[in-house]
């Protein structure tokens, strides 16, 4: 009964906020008219949108099989990339504003003068984000199953209904504010789990109870190279995922972006440390027999820890935190996936279409994408981490290279942009099937994509300098 009440209150807050923040214009719907003035909201919403249920459940449980290399590298890279991302964020904001870009493909199109690059990137985003959405919907439906004692399909329906409502009514402003609240619940849940494990393991004495092969930095069941590769490809997303970048676009001025850079890395640091440590700390609290079932299915470790260690009622908060993690990511992704189809591809094919029409389509197509990916989530592979790691890695890598060079190097050309995109995508997919499994495909993608981008840019005529709006200077 308590769980039902908690969920009703949660949904009520979401519905009220979406109605209050309802949007009537395309710019309002996709970038909140660039009027968000609270750094904490952008910083925490960014964190919540980045971490999905895959991090909460998959990332938490993965330490159980991957041991110390995963815990150390995943946490280290998340904090490192978060710091880098927010150090660059004011420049990205400035660039988006100067080019009046409302989506990430549009920003890169204007920087490089390359409509075909825009459509190509939009297509890559559409396919890869949909793969990722299916995985999160699956996780989310399982969570509702646990929270309310309903079937998987019913859980899926509830998840679809809630996200569809706040997406279609409120657009990015609703996503930002709701993600902000969800982010606080997630942080609370992560800290609660971490403290519960440490407390039950006897504080610092917990480390003495963890087996030596788990503490070893060379990895046990999972080789350390695999952990480093997964950690890199997942956390690279912090630097370049379009669903996070639009949150930076929505800021009112560069001061807001600057200070969001204080909140977000702190939140990411606390969350990553608490969540990624769960898998190893569990060894200090539970016996090998108790943990044996979770070696095969690490995703169920977090709910198990919550129900075994926390007092009744608190486990519902953990489930709600995981649901929040899933929903905040789903909503932001649906928005950028939809705009890649409507604002980027459709507007390219039919430039005369009005913004009001595009807005209407963005609402309808978004709900369709939610429904279709939920339908596909009825039957997907078991473990979440590898799928997530590849699909998000592809998008992050495809955006990262042209974005970074677009800001810091005026010599990058449209040919470089398109060649880099194709090389990144093809090399990641090819390496995934035929390469050495110890080297993560996304690492190969970063190298091949960068080389292709640089070579193609240098081989072609330098871009017209009047077309490039310089966003450098102003701080030195």
């Amino acid at each position, binding site marked *: 009964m308590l769980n039902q009440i908690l969920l009703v209150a949660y949904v009520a807050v979401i519905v009220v906020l979406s109605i209050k923040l309802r949007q009537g214009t395309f710019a309002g719907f996709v970038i909140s008219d660039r009027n968000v003035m609270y750094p904490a909201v952008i910083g925490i919403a960014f964190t919540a949108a980045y971490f999905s249920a895959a991090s909460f459940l998959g990332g938490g449980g993965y330490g159980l099989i991957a041991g*110390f290399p995963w*815990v*150390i590298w995943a*946490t*280290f890279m998340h*904090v*490192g990339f978060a*710091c880098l991302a*927010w*150090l660059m964020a*004011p420049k990205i904001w*400035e660039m988006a504003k100067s080019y009046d870009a409302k989506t990430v493909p549009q920003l890169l199109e204007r920087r490089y003068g390359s409509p075909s690059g825009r459509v190509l990137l939009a297509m890559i985003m559409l396919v890869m984000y949909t793969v990722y959405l299916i995985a999160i919907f699956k996780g989310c439906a399982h969570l509702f199953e646990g929270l309310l004692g309903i079937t998987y399909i019913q859980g899926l329906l509830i998840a679809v209904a809630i996200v569809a409502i706040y997406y279609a009514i409120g657009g990015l402003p609703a996503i930002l504010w709701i993600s902000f609240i969800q982010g606080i619940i997630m942080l609370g849940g992560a800290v609660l789990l971490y403290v519960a494990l440490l407390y039950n393991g006897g504080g*610092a004495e917990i*480390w*003495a109870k963890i087996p030596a092969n788990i*503490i070893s*930095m060379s990895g046990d069941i999972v080789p350390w190279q695999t952990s480093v590769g997964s950690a890199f490809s997942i956390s690279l997303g912090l630097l370049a995922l379009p669903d996070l970048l639009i949150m930076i676009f929505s800021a009112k*001025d*560069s*001061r807001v972006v*600057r*200070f969001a*850079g*204080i909140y977000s*890395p*702190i939140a990411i*640091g606390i969350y990553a*440390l608490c969540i990624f440590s769960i898998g190893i700390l569990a060894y200090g609290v539970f016996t090998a027999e108790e943990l044996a079932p979770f070696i095969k299915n690490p995703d169920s470790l977090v709910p198990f820890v919550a129900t075994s260690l926390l007092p009744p009622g608190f486990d519902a908060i953990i489930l709600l935190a995981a649901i929040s993690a899933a929903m905040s990511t789903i909503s932001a992704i649906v928005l950028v996936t939809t705009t890649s189809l409507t604002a980027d591809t459709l507007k390219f094919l039919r430039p005369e279409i009005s913004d009001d029409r595009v807005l209407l389509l963005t609402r309808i197509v978004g709900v369709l994408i939610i429904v279709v990916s939920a339908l596909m989530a009825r039957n997907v592979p078991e473990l979440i981490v590898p799928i997530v790691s590849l699909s998000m890695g592809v998008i992050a890598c495809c955006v990262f290279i042209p974005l970074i060079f677009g800001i810091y190097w005026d010599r990058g050309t449209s040919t470089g942009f398109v060649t880099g995109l194709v090389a990144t995508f093809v090399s990641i997919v090819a390496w995934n099937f035929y390469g050495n499994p110890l080297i993560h495909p996304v690492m190969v993608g970063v190298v091949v994509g960068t080389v292709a981008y640089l070579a193609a840019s240098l081989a072609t005529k330098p871009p017209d300098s009047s077309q490039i709006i310089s966003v450098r*200077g*102003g*701080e030195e």
Partner: protein
Amino acid sequence: MFLAPTPYLALLASIIIMLVITFFVILRRSDA
């Protein structure tokens, strides 16, 4: 006193260092 294994302590220390450097840069910047 044993607090935690060395890699974990190194992780905690590096998190703090990375955050401090970032905040230092952010707070020293002025808005364009």
